[in-house]
């Protein structure tokens, strides 16, 4: 599932954090690659990696490059078992150097919900871009949908997790307190 061992990545993040503390300007200069396809997600706010002035813009390929996972689950909003594929939320947070605070997720219809960074854990929520192997249109709650593995972890079968499962996601505002 994961191309890079998490411990090494964790070390990298720690190193980045350390550099950010003592040599912020240099780190700030480290930019993400530019999106080549249609931009599906814009991240704003307290992030360390950017590619569009203070923001970070992602196409599906860029998201996919952060690491891709799949799981099967049922949801209250679908009929039958679904397979969701996407980037784990914690991978995105890592990529952006976010370790704490909240992610204010905003949908295309201006639905918004706050997801604490502490939710971004291994085997936790993902930003899905494939449902049952196919990209999702707006009519199918796409193109991005934050999905928790409800069936794998019962703790996620709660109103809080359901409310944080935002579909038609287009933007994330990071607030590091």
């Amino acid at each position, binding site marked *: 599932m994961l191309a890079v061992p998490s411990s090494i990545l964790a070390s990298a993040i720690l190193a980045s954090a350390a550099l950010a503390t003592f040599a912020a300007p240099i780190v700030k200069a480290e930019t993400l690659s530019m999106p080549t396809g249609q931009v599906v997600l814009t991240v704003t706010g307290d992030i360390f990696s950017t590619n569009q002035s203070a923001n970070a813009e992602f196409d599906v390929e860029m998201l996919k490059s952060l690491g891709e996972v799949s799981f099967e689950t*049922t*949801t*209250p*909003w*679908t*009929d*039958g078992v679904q397979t969701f594929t996407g980037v784990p939320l914690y991978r995105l947070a890592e990529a952006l150097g976010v370790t704490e605070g909240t992610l204010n997720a905003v949908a*295309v*219809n201006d639905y918004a919900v706050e997801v604490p960074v502490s939710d971004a854990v291994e085997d936790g929520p993902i930003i899905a871009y494939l449902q049952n192997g196919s990209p999702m*249109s*707006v*009519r*199918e*709650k796409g193109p991005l949908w934050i999905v928790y593995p409800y069936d794998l972890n*019962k703790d996620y*079968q*709660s*109103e809080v997790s*359901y*409310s944080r*499962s935002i*579909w*038609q996601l287009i933007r994330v505002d990071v607030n590091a307190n």
Partner: protein
Amino acid sequence: MLCMATIAFLAKNVRGELENLAVVSVDNLQWTIGQTELELLLLQKTLRAVLAQKALADNAASLAKIRLRFDIFYSRIRLIAEGQQFAAIRKDVRTAEDLLRLNAFLDKYTAMFDGPDSALFAHLPEIEADVEKLMPIGREVALLGVRLHAAEVEVERQSIALALGGIGLLAWILALVLLAVIAMLVALFHRITQSERGTEVARSRLQTVIATSLDGIITANRDGLIIDYNGAAEHLFGHDKSAAIGHGIDLIVPAHLRPAHVVGMERVRQSGEKNVVGRGLVQLEALHKDGTVFPVEMSLASAILDGSEFFVGFIRDISDRVKFEQELIEARDRALEGKQAKAEFLTTMSHEMRTPLNGILGAIELLEAEKSRAHQARFVAAIKTSARLLLHHVNGVLTMARAEAGRIDLFPLNVDPSDLLRELVESQRHALKASGNRIKCHTDAAPGRIFLDPLRLRQVILNLIGNANKFTRNGEILVECDTIPGADLVEFRVIDTGIGIAHENLERIFEEFRTLDASYSRTAEGSGLGLAISRRLVQAMGGEIGVDSEPGEGSLFWVRLPIGPVVEEEAIDLELRSDKPDSKGLQHQVRPMRVLLVEDNHINRLVAREMLIRDGHSVLEAHDGREGVRLAGIQPFDVILMDISMPELDGVTATSLIRESLGPNRNTPIFALTAHAFPEDAERFREAGITTTLIKPLSSAALRAALSATMPGKYVLTSAEESAIPETFANLVASLGREAALGLFDSFRNEAEELIQRVSSQNWAAETDSVRADAVHKLAGSASVLGASRFRRHLQLLERDYRAGQIDAATRHLVLLEESWSHTLAEIEGCKSCPAEV
């Protein structure tokens, strides 16, 4: 257990309920449904805004906005149509209808929205019109959200209520269970406390029983170690409790029982088989701390406590019981043996007595038929011999009986053993000739003087000579006497050349009532008492007797006696001899005497009278003690012969009455006649005033000897008993004057006469002894002051009798008191008439 199961079940149920509440399978339905109407309104608003512009410059951008709104609305309808959380809603008929119409709208325009901008733009008014038509449906779906909310809240409330109800019920049940458990615990505690108290009471009671038990109680474990030990055991075995506990039980097992004890304990350990346990009382021996072994009675029990076996022994010292049993057995054996011996003796004696009796009877028969005086004299001599033999036997039995009672009276004198032996040998020489035996006497080494009872010594030697003669035929008998140097002992030996005695019989021949065996008793007649009496006599004299013998060759009997101290003859004044042959007495010429003979048996009286008259004495007879006292008060006698054993007033009492009277015979010698004379009797006789005792049957020789030794008035009262009235009167007159002295004597006279009167009245007998004694004592004091010694002595005797409760003696003295007073009064009157200048 059931309770626990119920609680567990209920708890699980409630937890399940709570978990159901925690897990939610539906998102916020009301919100989602409400969003449908909102999205429809947003689509309508966007459409209207675009249509209002009419000629749009930026057509594409506007259309993109409308397309987005359509897509979002589309996703909303799809959500309700497909989402599993809406499955229940979809079954509602009205909702289903609404969904159909909304889907129809989407189906109608989806191709158009996906198509080219121009076609879409052209249809915008139409779309707007259709959206307008959908508005009531959007409202209805929104209201559905309200309905759903109400229902959902209701369900949720009921579910929570149910869960809380379950919890409440569980709490109640828990509380009840808790109460029940508490009640059970309280009951259990109560029961345990009660049981503990009961156990404690039982334990302390048991402790008390054990501690105060008279039996030793020892508890030991299976290894034979003492684990408890009570106070009685401490006393019984001498070991302290602290020292005994932890020690092996073999502590109290004597050495000779230890091997058996070890084997027994091993057997119990190996097989559990017990020999002593539960067998009731077992007699054993136990070991005291000081090493003594004593008999015990033990009962042993075993019990099991906490899985380990222990033994409890109750042990009682039965030393006393065993000792008593042993003594009883010995006493019984002795009694049986004695009974046997006495039966044998009776047989022998009967035989021995029958022989001379037959002789006497035969001789009497012959005497009756015989006319010739010479023949008569021979028969009389035969009768006399037989009678003497009989008497000898009876004397032997009496001596033995006295010896049995431990009363052999000894009257030691200075004796020349050579003289005594020679005299004995000579007296026997003739008798021995009948058996063809010669007798010799060797006394060269004999001491010149020994201090012994000659009568008893003579009896012993005679017995030995007689014995030797019985068992020797045509042999020689040697009598010897030696001093044993350095030991202050004299040894007499009687040696014969007779049949001898078997060694096994050497000890037995000295036993009482034994003739050795049948053959012996045939060879030699005899009561079998001779040697036994000899031994008793020798032992009484502080000596030893023994025998050496060789069967077929002869026997040697020896007697060892202490030589004794040198004593003056005069110290012995009371003689108790009657059968002592005194040949010299025959030659004594006794002066004629006036004799009072007091004897109740007429035959004895006759014999004594004849003997006295033959010797020229005059005799007055009294037939009993009372008559004797009366006659003695009338006229003086030279001698009074007093039988001791008489009915009513016996000889001793009569004598004391005569002595205490003021009659003419108060100083006259009184001879007692008695068949028995024990040492304590001699003392009693002497106290009563008896001068000499003659043993019955009376012989002329003994009587003659006693009379010849008598001096008139030899028995004299002590001077303390003499009256001192004239001297006292004279002294009182000298010191107080005649009038005062006379006054004193008058008041004494009144006092005395008052008492005399009082004692003769009926009331006197009703007074207590001490009152009577006190009254007599008071007058005795007065009599003492005035020198009326004799009267005072009578009063003192009377007082003594009252104090000792001897009313018979007191009554006797009372009789004399009046007489005594009349004498005293005469003396006083005599003094009064004396001239004043005395």
